[in-house]
């Protein structure tokens, strides 16, 4: 019997409503109450077996759920269409999700560690800054160029990253992340420690830094950025998910889980690791390019080692290898400190502590990755 569509839709609607309430909540007590209520709701749902129903419903009607999720984000964006700050938060979250998806391909699928995620994001930002300032390159092209720059510069780390033991890649990416930030700081070519400005993004003649006026509809200029970030995320999400559900995804998993056996069955370990590492950095760079435009002003202090660890924390907390987990964790990581201002100072320590707890007690993360299903919703042709 096919699973019903309803649970998935109800879930999407509930998430949207919850998001609205959460983002609208002003006082910390209200936010705290919402968090407790949310946790209680999840616990109750688990108790009554509803979570399983939602899961099967989503798996069986993925297209529906995807559309509902996108619609939900649009609803929230429209609701807050004049709130600069909320829209900025949403944009940041959406872009971090894209970057974290890149990290998922590297670490979640191929098992390649990367502790320089923020640096690759930063490369995208600075590429956008430089291209907007000095060249007439059309803005839409700047995004993939930011990605390409990140991928290209990342390739200098390829040899140590290809080593079997994870600590080489860890060491080299940590070193690179620090090098990137320090390098930008010590010279003034790219603005030095003060940073440099990034011109506005533009599409079809409309500059994204101008407020939006269509007929009677007025919105903050960030609204356009939310739409752009959402579009980028949708593309990245679709790409990463499709990748996982293919022979490529299988190959990546195989080399992560057992290099020796994979080699004996024809998999070119180096090729796949390079592919994953490059693609991941490309996604981070693209997100970075748009992020630069959104911020309007970037400085090396945005891209520290701590920020790279936040990206790693996102994929560990959300559920390694699960794109939806990344989405949930990124939202959590971006929005929570804004709602509890007191956490701002303790962000790094808080996320690190949470990751430690997760690694000790629930290493799979919040939303564990499901078994590969090449065509969810379709049944296998059974053998005669």
């Amino acid at each position: 019997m096919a699973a019903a569509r309803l649970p998935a839709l109800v879930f999407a609607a509930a998430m949207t409503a919850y998001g609205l309430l959460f983002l609208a909540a002003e006082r910390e007590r209200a936010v705290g109450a919402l968090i407790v209520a949310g946790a209680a709701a999840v616990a109750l749902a688990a108790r009554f077996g509803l979570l399983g129903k939602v899961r099967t419903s989503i798996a069986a009607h993925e297209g529906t759920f995807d559309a509902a999720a996108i619609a939900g984000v649009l609803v929230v964006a429209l609701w807050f269409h004049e709130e600069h700050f909320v829209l900025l938060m949403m944009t940041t979250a959406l872009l971090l999700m894209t970057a974290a998806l890149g990290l998922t391909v590297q670490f979640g699928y191929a098992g390649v560690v990367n502790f320089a995620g923020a640096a690759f994001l930063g490369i995208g930002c600075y590429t956008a800054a430089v291209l907007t300032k000095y060249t007439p390159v059309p803005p839409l092209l700047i995004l993939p160029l930011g990605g390409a720059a990140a991928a290209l510069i990342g390739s200098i780390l390829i040899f140590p990253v290809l080593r079997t033991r994870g600590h080489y890649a860890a060491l080299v990416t940590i070193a690179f992340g620090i090098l990137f930030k320090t390098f930008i700081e010590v010279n003034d070519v790219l603005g030095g420690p003060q940073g440099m400005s990034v011109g506005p993004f533009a599409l079809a003649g409309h500059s994204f830094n101008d407020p939006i006026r269509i007929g009677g509809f007025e919105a903050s200029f960030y609204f356009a950025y939310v739409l752009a970030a959402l579009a980028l995320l949708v593309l990245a999400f679709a790409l990463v998910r499709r990748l996982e559900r293919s022979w490529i995804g299988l190959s990546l998993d195989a080399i992560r889980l057992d290099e020796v056996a994979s080699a004996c069955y024809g998999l070119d370990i180096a090729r796949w690791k390079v592919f994953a590492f490059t693609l991941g950095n490309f996604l981070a760079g693209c997100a970075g390019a748009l992020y630069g435009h959104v911020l309007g002003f970037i400085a090396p202090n945005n891209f520290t080692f701590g920020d790279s660890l936040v990206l790693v924390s996102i994929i560990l907390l959300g559920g390694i290898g699960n794109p939806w987990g990344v989405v949930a964790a990124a939202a959590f990581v971006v929005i929570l400190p804004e709602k509890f201002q007191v956490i701002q100072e303790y962000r790094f320590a808080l996320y690190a502590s949470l990751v430690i707890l997760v690694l000790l007690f629930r290493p799979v993360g919040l939303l564990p990755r499901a078994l590969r299903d090449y065509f969810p919703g379709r049944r296998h042709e059974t053998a005669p």
Partner: protein
Amino acid sequence: MSPLLACRALTCRFGGVVALDRVDFSAREGEIVGLIGPNGSGKTTLFNVITGIYRPRDGSVTFAGADVTGARPQAIYRAGITRTFQRSRMCLPLSVFDNIMVGNHKRLSHGLVFNLLRRSAFAAELARSFVEARELLNIFSPRLAERIDEPVAGLPMIDRRRIEICRALISRPRLILLDEPSAGMTHEETRELMDDILVVRERMAGLTIVIIEHEMGVIERITQHCVVLNYGRKISEGTFAAIARDRNVQEAYLGVA
């Protein structure tokens, strides 16, 4: 007719230890060859050298007329040699089907465009592969074939060994190296496994098998030819009956009286 696989004077050292000492080993097409010897005699090392995991210090490996000495494991696989491992190497979080498909690498398309965009072509390849994998599993255990979409982590060791053999067979290799496939199985299960392997061999004409085993009953039953190693050296060769009578072999296993 020249043998399908010919190893000449293979020598393999690890620091001071001589794991293989000028070993000659060959297998003719369609044969089932047994490779036996006490623990540590170099049997798995021989497999590792043939499949390119270790480079031999000396000697050569020829397969189907081509010199494959020191070739990378990927090249060995493409040439048509597959293997199972002494300690079971499975991707535990992945499904049975996925694990078998790892072995099917050379018959699957790995292009970016194919996998990302040409979904109907991919679906067709997936369906074909699924049918093949199921049929193969069915030979070994219809019950296991039912569980083709389950993660391997939840399956008992004997099923994991069967899956490993299917993984080695799915790419229609010319030569398959089985490293103690029946380890951990009861006599009954072992007999069943060997029967199934013989069935597969019927269906894949010309399949050559080299099998490392400790159970002599198995060796006696299914092999046409045996090679005995001890301390990295070949000490005897011939039919099972012949080597069982060989004094050197008896001494190696039981010690000198």
